[in-house]
């Protein structure tokens, strides 16, 4: 395991942890003052392919099976550059593997597992959607990069000048990469800083409401004014 | 984006009972048109938002001919254009109007 990841785990779980890396998948447990939590994640900006997705869903299913009626929290560590780009993977139905993983994550929530995602490194589009973004609570660690696409690529595809995008990104959180932008839109609940005690902060997140509050949060923070409003309009329309 | 507002005299067909309705689609070379009831039975109002710049005169000509061609008094047409040719514009407007009549 990279020294950086090791340091992260030590800071999160001063009570001790046993987390192994197989390929680019992390799995194991971490100790907190409230007891052990499951740790499942990826490292080294993993491009999520069918094997990684299967390893992650396997870890989630095993956690559910192991805990039975006493569900412990699951801490996801997300570090992904997105989905693997491959013809074979597409043929096999990578989207289906991601959907399966999402279902497993949701089953864990249904079974009472608290779900927390820590973004360490990168969290990019498809790879992030499959598990990290489905947690009850999502945190970006310092230096975390969250995005769908960088602005140069976006400029190329949308044919909007790069300069114009850069300028608009100063005021709008809606399209430019950045954990801060996701925080403003309610997609990330918290941004941790380098100096805080992460084990204490994690502890505080291990309880809470499993409802999806992101749209409301986005409106509160002023970054996403329509998501909740329009959903409510549809909900109450005659 | 360029916008154009046009308010033209028009004859009303009282038998038309327009529900607001949307026709077409905003895709390259195409447009959508939202037909609604207007405020004045003797006028027809057009609001155009277009991606193609510099065609105000052409739009005016197309819409003026359309308003002369059909009894569109008391109607308003809101258009989002993504570079439709005048032929497509006329066709969509005709289709939208004919659908009101047919419905």
């Amino acid at each position, binding site marked *: 395991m990279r020294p950086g990841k090791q340091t992260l785990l030590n800071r999160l779980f001063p009570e001790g942890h046993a987390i192994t890396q197989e390929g680019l998948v992390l799995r194991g447990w971490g100790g907190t003052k409230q007891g052990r939590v499951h740790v499942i994640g990826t490292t080294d900006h993993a491009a999520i392919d069918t094997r990684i997705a299967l390893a992650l869903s396997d870890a989630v299913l095993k956690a559910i099976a192991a805990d039975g009626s006493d569900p412990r929290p699951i801490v996801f560590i997300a570090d992904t550059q997105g989905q693997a780009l491959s013809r074979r993977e597409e043929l096999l139905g990578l989207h289906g593997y991601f959907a399966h993983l999402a279902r497993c994550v949701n089953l864990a929530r249904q079974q009472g597992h608290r779900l927390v995602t820590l973004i360490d490194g990168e969290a990019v589009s498809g790879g992030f959607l499959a598990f990290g973004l489905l947690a009850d609570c999502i945190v970006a660690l310092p230096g975390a990069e969250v995005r769908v696409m960088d602005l140069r690529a976006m400029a190329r595809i949308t044919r909007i000048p790069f300069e114009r995008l850069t300028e608009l990104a100063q005021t709008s959180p809606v399209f430019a990469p950045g954990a801060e932008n996701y925080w403003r839109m309610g997609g990330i609940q918290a941004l941790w800083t380098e100096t805080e005690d992460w084990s204490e902060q994690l502890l505080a997140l291990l309880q809470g409401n499993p409802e999806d509050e992101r749209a409301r949060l986005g409106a509160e923070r002023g970054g996403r004014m329509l998501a909740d409003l329009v959903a409510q309009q549809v909900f109450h329309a005659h | 984006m360029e916008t154009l507002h046009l308010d033209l005299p028009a004859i009303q067909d009282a038998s038309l009972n327009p529900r607001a309705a949307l026709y077409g689609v905003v895709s390259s*070379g195409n447009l959508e048109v939202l037909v609604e009831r207007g405020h004045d039975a003797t006028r027809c109002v057009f609001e155009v938002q277009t991606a193609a710049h510099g065609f105000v005169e*052409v739009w005016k000509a197309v819409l003026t001919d359309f308003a002369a061609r059909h009894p569109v008094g008391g109607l308003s047409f809101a258009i989002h254009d993504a570079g439709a*040719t005048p*032929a497509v514009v*006329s066709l969509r407007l*005709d289709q939208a109007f*004919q659908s009101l009549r047919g419905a």
Partner: protein
Amino acid sequence: MNALQPIRTWNHEALRRQARLERSTPFSRGKAVAARDMVSLLEALLEPGDRVCLEGNNQKQADFLAESLAACSPQRVHDLHLVQSVLALPAHIELFEKGIARRLDFSFAGPQAHRLARLVQSRSIEIGAIHTYLELFGRYFIDLTPQVCLIAAQAADAEGNLYLGPNTEDTPVIVEATAFKSGIVIAQVNEQLERLPRVDIPASWVDFFVVAPTPNHIEPLFTRDPRHITEIQVLMAMMAIKGIYAEYGVERLNHGIGFDTAAIELLLPTYGESLGLKGKIARYWALNPHPTLIPAIEAGFVERVHSFGSEVGMEAYVAARPDIFFPGADGSLRSNRAFCQTAGLYACDLFIGSTLQIDLEGNSSTATLGRITGFGGAPNMGSDARGRRHASAAWLKAGQEKNGGQTPARGQKLVVQTVETWREPGHPAFVERLDAWQLKQDMGMALPPIMIYGDDVSHIVTEEGMANLLLCRSPEEREQAIRGVAGYTPVGMARDHALVENLRDRGIIRRPADMGIDVRDATRDLLAARSIKDLVRASGGLYQPPKQFRNW
């Protein structure tokens, strides 16, 4: 009488041919040449300034030979004069960039139009003329006879007999002109066979053949995916069928390439049938095997089709419909551009095609600034053949209209231009002055590259309506008839409204409603096929579309 006068030799060309062959012997075994020896062979037999026909059709390309020629040393091979119908490959352009070739007489340069224009501007090329196909073929036998031709065939046998496959195109006319004038004929083939399905070119006309490392490139140029046909094109097709095909009783015709004409083909079994036109119109065609013609063939509209070339994927369908097409005894299509162009010019009553620009006289052009495209088949098909002597109902009716209703001494071909008034915002199809004139000036040409001359055009169809130019009695009327269907283009908006209404009263301009066409009926539901898959189904699975056209 005068003993000092030198004795003239009468077999200079044959001797020169003999010398070429002798220089080539180290690089061939009989007529067979190995692919790796082709460059050496060309360097040995070619002489500076030779007239060379490097077979480039609009579909089949002698691509291996083109690349071999381009790989020759410009020190040994230079200043060639290329005489070929189509300049399609990057290698064709390279010949001029490297100085291997210097002069060009041709017809069409679609894919290389930009680079060709740059060559002209940098004075790296001399263009003799941009010809129609038949003109160029004619000149092969008069003053542009090739000394060497490099052609493409499907297969050769050990003796050098050639089988051309369904894409015959220009090959017979090129070989005929070269072989019988002491020239050298070199063929690239896709395969060597024990026995050919049929012999299209006898071995005695062929000097060398080479099995190319990869099969020659064939562009599926005539495949139009019905998916892209618009409602506007459906509307214009309805006008063409009802207002022209039905009214003149057009039985023999040619269609240009494009979605406008594909729409007509796909409307025959639906709209055409509903008007009771089966057996009355569109029975005999000079046309490549367009996939979009399949539904009309299956519906029984079409009786015979002769083709310039073939079309990729249509082989099995054509072979299974021998009554319609011209297959050899072996079952595969025989096409021939020279004969089919002749058929289009003299034996057809109607040509219909699209264009990029039309001016106030009805001249049309596909030339735009910075591109030298040349012409395809349109100028021959889209011209009134004044040498024609046989009558037909459509030809006589058109002639009578042109002659003010009096019985004329000759008929008139129907030449129809069908265009949407705006191609896209910023590009009107109707213009005061064709770009062709500017191009003539920029490129120092003798003539503007006009595709179809206005005085040959009988009708213009746009989404606004149809103008019958045969009925116009003065240049002013003609101009207003054109403006009157030019829609919201600047040309159209500058019309004299009173005059246009007058022309409409006289039936010179007709709107869809005047023809009994309800614009609301113009939907894609009228198309007999709306996708390539529909065409495959209509063919009973015989049509095998190229992979880029399939979405299953």
